[in-house]
Structures are given as structure tokens and as C-alpha cells.
């Protein structure tokens, strides 16, 4: 009886190892559109798969404790309003070719909400040095087609490569599967990654001796383990966060002192009294 009256949790939500852990609430999508391959269309939403947890600080004026804001000045010393700002393509020697918002807008690639997948390639052919960041793609009322595409990629080990326009920028994307999801990894253009073989310092490296190699292989063998990324912690972040805790301790004690807050109770007593008087 009880089960039928309640909404059941999906299997995934039931796997709870730590009491603190809750179901993953996905952040807001930054893009929506569809994966397109020939005649097949799979509507999806894109969500950044990484979360930046690095420590960041705000600039604060030490004497008054309020945040710092910027004002924009030109070299003539005048404060400049946003609407007076145009874009300069720097030629060097203080010479700029000027572009207006409209000119730049017109030059941008036509925005499209389709990830046009041109071909399938072997996932491991894609060189990770070209990887920029990865977007998690979630189905947008397209669960069946999405699931099929994911399964096909898992079974074949293939990824699809194509183009995606996001915020008026065109990107090469590699669409592949990751765990239960389809993801799109944005990639650099081929001329954006250095070719180290062409660097003088790397051109004529001395050839190691047989002896050195076999000794080295021994060491590598001894130190070889399975990769476990979870052992690496951001110790700077942890230190700063524990410093934050101790820095605010005094204030928290003050806040806890005035903790008795019968506000909800007061409100309801007042409402009742007022209502009685209005009867």
C-alpha cells in the first residue's frame, strides 16, 4: 500500500553510499539543440561536466571591507561609458583597426542549434592534447534515440566528429559516450597545438644507453599502479577552507547566541490576534 502511494526513486538515486551524498542535481544547460547525423536528429541539452572548485578571492578594500569595482578610463584620462567602446584589432605601435559591434556580429558564424556530425572515427584516434573541455549532453525529450546512440558508441568504440556553434563561436566537437551519458568534447584546431618535434631543444636529444633503459624500466615497473585520481586533493583549498572556519568562529558564536528565533511563532500569534479583532 505504502509503495503504491509514493513516487518511487529511480535505481540510480537509490545508490547512496554516504549519508551526505544526494542525487546529482544538474546545473543549468548552457546550450540546447540537437545532434544531427544524416536524417537522424537527437534533441539534447548541453551542461558543463566540470565544476571549478579552486579557491577564489574577491578584492576587498581593507579599510572599509567592501568589494572593489572597476571604472573604465581611456588614455586621455576620461571615464568611458560602455556605449562609447568599440573594438580594436591591435597592429602594434599603438595602431588599432577599429571594429563596431555590428561588424563583429556580422562576421560571426551563423548560429545554429545543430551539432552536425560528419563522420564516425575511432575514439582512441582522437588525440587528448586537442581536448579543451567536455559538455555533458542530456536527452531533451529524446530518451529513446539518445539511448540508442549511446549504446551504438559503446558497442563500436566509435565517436562522432562534427561542428557545433555556441555563443557565436564554432567548435570542433568529438561526441562520445562516458558512463551512462553522451558527451561532447570541444577540440582545438590543428594549428593551435604546438608541434614539439620542431623545437630546437627537443630535436637532437641524446640516445639513452641500453643499460639506462633497462634500469629505468625496472623502476617504472616497481612504481606502476592503477590510476586513482581521488587520492589527489587540493590541499590549498582545504587549508583555506579550514582557515575560513576558524576565522568566522567568533561571529558564528554570536549568531548562535541570538539563535532563539520564535519569528514564525510570533507571526502566527499576531495573525490570530489580528484576525480575532477583525471578526
Amino acid at each position: 500500500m505504502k509503495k503504491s502511494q509514493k513516487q518511487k526513486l529511480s535505481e540510480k538515486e537509490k545508490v547512496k553510499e554516504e549519508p551526505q551524498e544526494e542525487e546529482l542535481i544538474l546545473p543549468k544547460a548552457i546550450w540546447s539543440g540537437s545532434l544531427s547525423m544524416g536524417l537522424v536528429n537527437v534533441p539534447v541539452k548541453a551542461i558543463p561536466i566540470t565544476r571549478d572548485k579552486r579557491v577564489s578571492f574577491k578584492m576587498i578594500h581593507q579599510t572599509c571591507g567592501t568589494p572593489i569595482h572597476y571604472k573604465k578610463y581611456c588614455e586621455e584620462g576620461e571615464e568611458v561609458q560602455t556605449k562609447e567602446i568599440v573594438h580594436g584589432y591591435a597592429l602594434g605601435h599603438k595602431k588599432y583597426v577599429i571594429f563596431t559591434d555590428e561588424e563583429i556580429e556580422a562576421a560571426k558564424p551563423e548560429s545554429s542549434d545543430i551539432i552536425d556530425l560528419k563522420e564516425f572515427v575511432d575514439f582512441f584516434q582522437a588525440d587528448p592534447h586537442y581536448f579543451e573541455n567536455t559538455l555533458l549532453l542530456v536527452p531533451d525529450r529524446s530518451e529513446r534515440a539518445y539511448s540508442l546512440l549511446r549504446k551504438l558508441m559503446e558497442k563500436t568504440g566509435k565517436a562522432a566528429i562534427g561542428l557545433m556553434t555556441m555563443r557565436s563561436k564554432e567548435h570542433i566537437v568529438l561526441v562520445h559516450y562516458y558512463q551512462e551519458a553522451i558527451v561532447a568534447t570541444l577540440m582545438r584546431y590543428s594549428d593551435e597545438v604546438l608541434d614539439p618535434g620542431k623545437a630546437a631543444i627537443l630535436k637532437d636529444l641524446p640516445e639513452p644507453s641500453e643499460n639506462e633503459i633497462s634500469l629505468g624500466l625496472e623502476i617504472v615497473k616497481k612504481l606502476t599502479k592503477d590510476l586513482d585520481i581521488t587520492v589527489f586533493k587540493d590541499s590549498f583549498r582545504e587549508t583555506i577552507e579550514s582557515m575560513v572556519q576558524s576565522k568566522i568562529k567568533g561571529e558564528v558564536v554570536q549568531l548562535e547566541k541570538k539563535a532563539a528565533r520564535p519569528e514564525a511563532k510570533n507571526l502566527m500569534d499576531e495573525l490570530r490576534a489580528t484576525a480575532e479583532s477583525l471578526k
Partner: protein
Amino acid sequence: MIMDPIKPMLAVQGKVFSSNEWIFEPKIDGTRCIAHISNDTVELQNRRLRLITHRYPEITRALQTAAGGCVLDGELAVFSKGIPDFSSLAVREQQVKAVRIDYLSKALPASYIVFDILYRGSESLMNLPLIERKSILENELQDNDFITRIDYLPAEGEAYFKAALKKGLEGIMAKRLASTYQPGVRSRDWVKIKKHLTLDLVVGGYMLGQGQRGPFFGSLLVGAYDSGKLVYMGRVGSGFSQQELEEISLEFKMSEGTPFFNPPDRKDVQWLKPELVVEVEAMEVSKRGHLRAPVFLRRRIDKPPEECTVDQLLIGEA
């Protein structure tokens, strides 16, 4: 503990009335929260069945001592100047970092205002009449600094409504004494009574702005879903702050075609993908389904467009 989340019972909107068959409660401007309490754990879930336990450590701790095994329904609110303040609550709702959650649980502590009990141990109470559930709640839950059982007034809806507006609340809830708890149902046994009608609507296009509104928009074209179709309901052109004009414009996702089932016949419209949700206040909705004198209230980042359905328009009657 593995708990099954429960879809909360929902209310229709209606006009103020008095009746011996009803009780009246203050309407708390917060976030809906169902608490699942067992001997050793407390889990909080919101209206959308998401777990929000870790966001409100003060409530979780307080419930541990306030009640034994039971499932409670209520509203989480953060008080400011004596009344629930939605914008303070919004600060609490957005946190993911443990350090901030911990600090804000002390700087902006929440109150859990409990109005119903759905289970006692594993025994479902949902089929009992409301008034019996209220008396069980009285025995099962003790108030403390963070937990408050909601007060209610029998019969005198009009007086209670006036008192609520005087105190600066948005309205009251009317609940039928004999009603059962109907999970997931927008029931006529619960009526929210507010000064004005408010609706959560999907933005499907905008009219171009003129003058100062030039860079943004003149008005938003809004609608609600009726069995999968987005039904156009009118234009909202007032109530926006400068900041809101900017923020909303940035969210626009252009679309070639109209998302509306019954689009208005106008040329100067830019259609949008139906992804933005806004809360709108209106004098009333005409018989033909059009908004009268709509005013923008706020964006609803927390609400998915597909949940903005025409059943919000159900009007309760006494």
C-alpha cells in the same frame, strides 16, 4: 535509509470566503519541503522530489529531536523583519559549498513551518480527514527554535485573510476539514487565496523594445501548457527593473517559428525557444484565456517550463 519521495498535494487558486467546513492557515512564502524522519536519519525533499537535506543542516538537526518516526509536510522559509522573505531563502537554495552552507545556516537560519503529517512510523495517515491529521501532528511534533507547527483558524477566512495582508503576507490557504491528503494532486480541497492571481508562465517570444527599452524588449509573450501544447495567454510589458530587463534579454534563445499553439497574429514579434519561466501577477484571466493587466514579478529559475501548465488556472470555490 532509503526513503521514497512523496509528490506533495497542491492547491488551486481562489477568492476569499468563510465557511465552517474549512480551516485557514497563513500562506508561507518559502519552498515546499517534505521531511522523512526515522530514528536515526532525517531526509528533506522538495516539491520536485529532490533531496535538499544537506542544504538545511539546522532543520535536519532540529527535526532529529522534535519528532520520532514520521513524514511531515510543510514550508521552509527564512524570516526577515518578522515575515518569510523569499529572496533570503533563495540565497540558501543556491548553495553547494559546505563552508557556505554551514555559515548561512547560522547567518540566515531557516524555519520549517509544518502543516501536515503523512505517516506515523510506517502507517499512512493520508486517508484520514485533515482535522484528525492535525491532532496527530500536535502529539507527534514538538515546536523548537527551528520547527513550528502552523497555526490555523477555523471558519473565519475573511478575517484571517485581512490579518494576513495587514502583516504583509501574500495570502492564506484554505483547507477543507474533511479532506484527505492527495499526493501529487492539485486539489480543490486546498485553496490558496492571494490578493492577486499569480501564474508561472513560459516565455515564447517578445515584442521589440523602443526608446530606453530598445536594447532589450518591449514585452514578453507568455503562455502555459495544455496537454502538451503551449497556449498563448498574453503579453507582459511592465514590472521589470533595469537589471531584470538585461538579465532576461541575455537568456533569450531565438527561434525561427512560434512555440505557441495559437500564436497572436503580429508581425513585430521575435519568437523564442520556450525555456524561460516567469512569475506573473494578473487581475484575472478572461474566459478566452487571456491575462488582464499582467505584471512581471520575478524569474522562476527553479521551475522547468513543462511544469507551467494551465491547471494553475483551476479556481477553487467554497
